[in-house]
């Protein structure tokens, strides 16, 4: 399923909504999560999972082409941990 299909489903299931509103709803949900992660905040969505911005320490790496050593600075990386409930559903246990 891609974003346009998700928007389609939202619009179909909520007849009072025009398509542009369905699109705005979906966009704002993911935008809000991205903004929170950019602030370094964790996003906890019950039943789905938890998004966090994980800290990565600075490290030395090598440019594989030139062999030159470069310093990769400390940074944050988005991470998602699925909830137990979601994993159960994905594995065919519990509610579908």
């Amino acid at each position, binding site marked *: *399923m*891609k974003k346009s299909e998700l928007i389609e489903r939202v619009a179909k299931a909520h007849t009072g909504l025009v398509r542009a509103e369905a699109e705005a709803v979906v966009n704002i*949900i993911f935008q*809000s999560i991205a903004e929170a*992660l950019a602030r370094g905040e964790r996003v906890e969505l019950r039943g789905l999972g938890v998004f966090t911005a994980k800290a990565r320490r600075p490290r030395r790496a090598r440019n594989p082409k030139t062999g030159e050593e470069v310093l990769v600075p400390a*940074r944050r990386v988005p991470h998602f941990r699925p909830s137990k409930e979601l994993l159960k559903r994905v594995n065919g246990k519990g509610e*579908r």
Partner: protein
Amino acid sequence: MTKADLVEAVHARVGLSKKESAELVQFVLEEIKRALARGEGVKISGFGHFMVLERAARVGRNPKTGEEIRIAPRKAVVFRPSPVLRRRVEGDEA
């Protein structure tokens, strides 16, 4: 941030009622879970890709007793952030 904050964002930025916003946020999250439960990935451009991956059976060990146990094959959910999201989250230090 929790679901309540997403509801508030939808309410404030789309201008729908709190009740409608809550229903819609719930619906969107539920659709994502339903797709994953079907074994279908969810690809959100500019955000990331939720994938269902098969994990092979393996032999594990109970760390307390040292006893060997067989771990059955199972499915895992993996999120691959899009380059756009990675850049936004990287931080100023980067």
